[in-house]
């Protein structure tokens, strides 16, 4: 855990002990630490018109976007309908991703941690070894403050993001801590079950279920706590991590989520296909799965089930085709990663990549327009949110982490300027991470590797 903040365990311990008094709940004395956290949290909750702020990070693989221009030329014009709510940042460098160990597709997954990877045993797309991320990611950091009140601290969604080759560091954006990855949920029907299935049941039943789970988990909690004292230091760390996870589940039992009504409605996901695993693995279903995940994401915001989300389109290095997209009348069956390796002069390859990038922008617009259709006070949910899109590398045929592009949408409750086109040179992207952290109401002047601490991007702040 980062030293600046109260360790999650300390908070959970306080709340966890409340659950011992079954079946009563919730009243317990705050320690000074907890009191500080609650104050800080309510600060983070400062919002226009009583609506919460939300954060979304969207990952698309392999970079390969054409350079953005202030007039949204080329397929960037896909974003024009929401031009006034979007800012484009050009020229930030993923400097933390330049540090070894790991190959560029691995290290680039440090997008949200702003720190290099740990050494480890994951074999990269082409052989290099690396481990997990070496620190907490921005989404999880935010969740410590804005995630306390919701059913889920964060929602980490993937679209076929574990579905190629070995699954390892390239399938993960989010970390609770060094070496503690947060896996993506890649099955929309499971997401529905976990988030929405108990929203519509009767209040008495919900209350019983909550008490039941508290009683069941109370013993589970105790057993991990006790065993952890009897084992080696390394095993102890594993068991305490499990214990923390159980305590987080216990704590969230008191946050069953919003009430159905208004903009909060059960999302329509339909029945899961019979052979769900093979459905989820088939490249032909990439777009449909993504659509469902975005619907679930938007609705979990509307029902206030979470306020922090990530959406990872494919694993990094994505070497899969886009058979539903057409280039010059034929489906795109090439390995996307391979296309990006082609020289700039390979017209067809870059033509295909342009079709794919345009499609990703269309997906972004789908989510943004959904959020923008939800009214909150004088504005929309999009206005109270910041949605960020980027990739692990900037360009496939250089594998560079320099001159990365970030698309930002929404002002995060008026904190961020929108409609801006900002160009940077040599500025580490950690500066953006700290700006986003501040935008969400969490104080601080640095995020990630201290070597790349240049403070926030003041020109982006309204």
């Amino acid at each position, binding site marked *: 855990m980062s030293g600046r903040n109260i360790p999650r365990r300390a908070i959970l311990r306080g709340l966890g002990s409340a659950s011992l008094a079954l079946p009563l709940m919730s009243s317990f004395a705050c320690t000074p630490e907890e009191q500080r956290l609650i104050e800080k949290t309510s600060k983070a909750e400062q919002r226009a018109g009583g609506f919460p702020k939300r954060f979304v990070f969207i990952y698309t693989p392999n970079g390969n976007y054409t350079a953005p221009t202030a007039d949204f030329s080329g397929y960037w014009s896909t974003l024009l309908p929401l031009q006034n709510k979007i800012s484009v940042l050009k020229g930030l460098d993923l400097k933390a991703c330049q540090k070894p160990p790991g190959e560029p597709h691995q290290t680039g997954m440090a997008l949200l941690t702003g720190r290099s990877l740990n050494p480890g*045993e994951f074999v990269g797309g*082409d052989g290099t070894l690396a481990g997990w991320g070496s620190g907490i990611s921005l989404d999880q950091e935010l969740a410590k403050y804005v995630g306390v009140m919701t059913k889920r601290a964060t929602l980490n969604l993937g679209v076929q993001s574990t579905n*190629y080759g070995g699954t390892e560091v390239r399938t993960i954006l989010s970390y609770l801590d060094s070496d503690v990855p947060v896996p993506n949920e890649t099955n929309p029907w499971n997401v529905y079950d*976990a988030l929405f299935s108990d929203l519509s049941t009767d209040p008495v039943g919900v209350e019983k279920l909550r008490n039941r789970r508290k*009683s069941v988990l109370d013993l*589970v909690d105790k057993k991990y706590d006790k065993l952890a004292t009897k084992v080696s230091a390394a095993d102890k760390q*594993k068991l305490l991590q499990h214990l923390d*996870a159980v305590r987080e589940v216990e704590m969230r039992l008191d946050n069953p989520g919003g009430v159905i009504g208004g903009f909060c409605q059960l999302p329509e996901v339909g029945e899961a296909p019979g052979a769900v695993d093979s459905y989820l693995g088939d490249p032909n279903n990439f777009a449909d799965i993504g659509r469902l995940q975005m619907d679930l994401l938007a609705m979990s915001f509307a029902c206030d089930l979470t306020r922090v989300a990530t959406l990872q389109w494919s694993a990094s290095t994505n070497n899969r085709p886009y058979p539903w997209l057409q280039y010059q009348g034929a489906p795109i*069956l090439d390995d996307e990663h*391979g296309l990006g390796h082609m020289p700039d002069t390979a017209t067809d390859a870059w033509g295909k990549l342009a079709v794919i990038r345009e499609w990703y922008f269309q997906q972004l617009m789908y989510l943004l327009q959904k959020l923008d259709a939800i009214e909150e006070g004088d504005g929309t949910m999009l206005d109270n949110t910041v949605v960020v899109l980027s990739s692990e590398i900037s360009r496939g045929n250089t594998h560079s982490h320099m001159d990365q592009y970030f698309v930002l949408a929404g002002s995060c409750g008026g904190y961020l300027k929108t409609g801006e086109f900002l160009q940077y040179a040599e500025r580490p992207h950690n500066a953006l991470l700290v700006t986003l952290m501040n935008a969400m109401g969490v104080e601080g002047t640095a995020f990630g590797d201290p070597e790349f601490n240049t403070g926030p991007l003041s020109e982006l702040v309204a």
Partner: protein
Amino acid sequence: MLWRRPGSSFSSCFSLLLAAPLALSCVGEIGDTDGIGETEELICGDDIVPGASPIRRLTKFEYDNTIRDLLGDETHPASIFPAEEQPLGFSNHASALNVTPILAEKYMLAAEGVALRATEDVHALTGCQVAADQPGYDACARSYLETFAPKAFRRPVTTEEIEELFAVYDSAWEIYADELVAKRFREGVAMAIESALQTPAFMYRVELGEGLSPVDPKAEIMPLTSWEMASRLSYFIWGTMPDEELLAFAEADELLTKEQVAAQARRMLGNGKAREAVAMFHQQWLDYDRVNNVTKDPALFPEWSPALALLMQEEMRQFVDHVIFDEAGDLKTLLTAPYSYADSNLAIFYGGEASGAAFERIDFPKNEHAGLLSMGALLSYYAHTNQTSPVHRGKLVREAFLCDILDPPPADVQFDLPEPSPDSTARERFSQHSADPACSGCHSLMDPLGFGFENFDALGRYRDKENGQTIDASGSIIDSDIDGSFDGVRELAEKLAASDEVKACYAKMWFRYAYGRGEQEKDACTLNDVEEAFGEADGNVKELLVALTQTDAFLYRFRGPVAEGGD
């Protein structure tokens, strides 16, 4: 860096000096993960050196199997858990088995589902009379938990543990106070099951060595209790909890000696559950289920379909299963068998004749087929959508069969994948691509190997000609103990089957799977023992598994300094 390969000539009691890594710059090896990295002289046979012994959590595969054997529930409840990571190829790698809140929540939901199904007829489950009063129900619950808990925890339980579970059961009577008595009983039993299934005694293989003493002066190395050994054996060989017989041996404390452990290992290999675990190893080693994600250019390959991919996956599973359990049982046959298993559709696809609807053995002309190397599930995955990929096929051999780790291409490499054309062969197209001196250094490890597969098209079908030209399937291999040229997959397979390096690699893969971790320098004796036994058994896979139960890594546990106090 890791010591590479001792060769098969070493005796079991020799002084093994850890050698320097090999020099070729394109190839790396797995680093020593404990960060110590000192070169120490191990006296194999004298010192007991178990290597790291991390606590191991049930994988999805093991969870499903255990629930099946514990409660007869075959619904695969672990399917809702997130995808597992596979560092070094295997999902049971202890260091990657982290638990996040999402996973803990899924454990809760899975346990609720299991308990709900288990208690559908709670009276039958507990042997309790219908319409008992509360004291009657309580007695039933306690008695049921006394039977259930030791099975679930795979060891005897204390009175305190029973009382803890009973307290969870008892809380149902308050929570469901407005419900009928039978309902309260059912929910109580279900809740106790839910708790048990989430505690570490169920979720982890807890090894504390209670009642035993360390075997070394530093007091860091522990023997295992018979109960702990029962679980080690059953999760390694079966991927599930111990059966009655294994538990009876544990009860009698007769899983202590090497001979006792080997006898059980051999018995267990005769049980169908071993087939499932061995299948799981091979699926993860070669990742052949990835064939289900393969797409092909429909204009060139209209025959390709998801249904065909599933058949190929099944072919691979059946081939491995039959070779290891019903046929010769050795690595050589896996590599060289001129036959496979297919149903009618798949047989016709491969150019054979229709047989029955069921999978059965099909024989190929001997010079056209060689075991694993000719499997459609691998050859279609290690190919492009529109043509073969000698590079990827060569890389497969280097990584899966020689355990090489190849360096990545330079980050700024710009490769122009050649378009298939009607007047050239893949060999011509790809030879040109790797002629560039910047590429050829590393590609010389892969491409000449991969050209040997050219008799198999992008879907894994045998062919003599490409675009009217006779296939040249000559290839060569360097930086191995079988350097030299060969013609086609058949000769390559014979070479691989004769290689000590390939045998050592296969054994190393099994090491990783068996012990849930990467090999380290201090595992040199264990690896050496295993390779030697594998050699003496003429490459018999079942004997390799037995050998993996006879090592320091399996028979002992490195506990290190015990953590002090609570958290």
